[in-house]
């Protein structure tokens, strides 16, 4: 999924006008992290790629197909874009249980079960979003996005509500998912550490503009780096990691 996006988006945030000017190219299977201070336009950039906001001027093409072209007044509705998104506020459906949220756009129950196990949601499947914590909601939101099996994953602060150990695990899990399924990932995060950060091309935004020159990452995941990181953290499996997190939680309480 080769993404070429160049656009200008203006909006009034309260009384303050804000404009986002961006021109980016993202290669197929690339992992991109958008960084920058709050209000720099990271989320707006994600939402523009998702088609949730319409830039006044600009063009977004994906694999040669036009998702948005303001000159030709063409706009591909979000639902017709091959994307999945994790929202900062999770956006879980309050009237559906955890498992029904995850399977909302996925009929593959086996995949849902697999995600539930990997993201430590086994005991929460029958609960409603109002009955689980913020960190748990965030994992459900990630599971729901991954269950869609889309070519482009847009993740807005997907680890922000996790404790450090679990955030490390989720980075590790997402890394493995990326390596296995090779989706293009565009992620907003304030974190500057972890396996994903090391593997990603980081694009810095400042006041609605791309501030730092973007340096291409190793698009093909570096297995050696992954294995080294795995050794350093002494992790054998998901179950091992989850057990360690639960021990840590119990010790904490």
């Amino acid at each position, binding site marked *: 999924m080769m993404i070429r996006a160049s656009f200008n988006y203006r909006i009034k945030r309260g009384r303050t006008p804000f404009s986002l000017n961006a021109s980016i190219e993202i290669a197929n299977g690339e992992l991109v992290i958008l960084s920058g201070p709050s209000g720099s336009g990271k989320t707006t950039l994600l939402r523009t790629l*998702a*088609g*949730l906001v319409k830039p006044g001027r600009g063009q977004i093409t994906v694999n040669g197909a036009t998702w948005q072209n303001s000159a030709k007044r063409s706009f591909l*509705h*979000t*639902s*017709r874009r091959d*994307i*999945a*998104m994790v*929202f900062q*506020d999770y*956006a*879980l*459906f*309050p*009237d559906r249980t955890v498992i029904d949220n995850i399977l*909302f*756009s996925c009929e593959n129950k086996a995949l849902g079960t697999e995600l539930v196990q990997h993201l430590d949601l086994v005991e929460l499947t029958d609960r*409603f*979003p*109002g*009955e689980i914590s913020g960190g748990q909601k965030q994992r459900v939101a990630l599971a*729901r*996005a991954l269950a*869609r099996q*889309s070519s482009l994953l*847009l993740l807005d602060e997907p680890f922000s509500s996790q404790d450090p150990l679990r955030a490390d695990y989720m980075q590790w899990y997402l890394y493995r998912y990326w390596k296995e399924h090779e989706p293009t990932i565009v992620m907003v995060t304030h974190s500057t550490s972890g396996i994903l950060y090391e593997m990603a091309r980081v694009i810095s935004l400042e006041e609605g503009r791309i501030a730092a020159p973007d340096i291409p990452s190793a698009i093909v995941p570096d297995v050696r780096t992954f294995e080294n990181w795995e050794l350093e953290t002494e992790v054998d499996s998901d179950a091992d990691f989850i057990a360690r997190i639960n021990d840590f939680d119990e010790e904490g309480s």
Partner: protein
Amino acid sequence: MFTLENITPFLTSLKLGGITTVILLVVTMPPAWVLGRKNFLLKPLAETLLTLPMILPPTVLGFYIVLFLSPQYASGAFFQKIAGSSLLFTFPGLVIASCIASAPFMILALKDGFSQIDTSLIEASYTLGKSPMQTMKQLVMPLMRPYIFTASMTTFAHTMGLFGVVLMVGGNIPGVTRVASIAVYEKVEELDYLTAHGYSVMLMGISVLLMLSANIWKQRLAERRHDDKSIL
């Protein structure tokens, strides 16, 4: 005391309430969605016009509905052409009048429901590949269930209690347009307080039952969801 003849106005009220509620539920859904979710320049004016029947004196509203249905005017002539005769003092005419008079109760309750649905939920549904129609069916409508129920109950109860508009548009034709609220008035005039009591208790009982069931249902849903961002 209560013969079939006596109970007919009550049955007419139930029929009128049921038909009006079903029609309004279908017809007012799109404008309620627009008013609840969209912002546009003429929104205050649209809201005023749509809720006007709620604040107008029933006789004023009734008078204009009589003109609206009168064959002397284009609208009435149109209805006459379709129905074959004037709709004034008929049950279908009464349905049109009660739809106009009760519309604000349905619209306001549905609008409230639509406006309570978090935009990010709808956006999330789109990003999960659901089209606007699928999102409406699979996400919005299930979330709207408590509001639809409450709106229907309120509209039904209000329609059962219509008096001024019904009297002006439908008259008081036994078995056709005589509804329970008019029958109460008539029995009081005849000093038949016992029958008037009977109708009143039935009307009041239905209203209490409807509103109570709506509130119990809402509470049960809220308890089941334990939703911290309550949609109720």
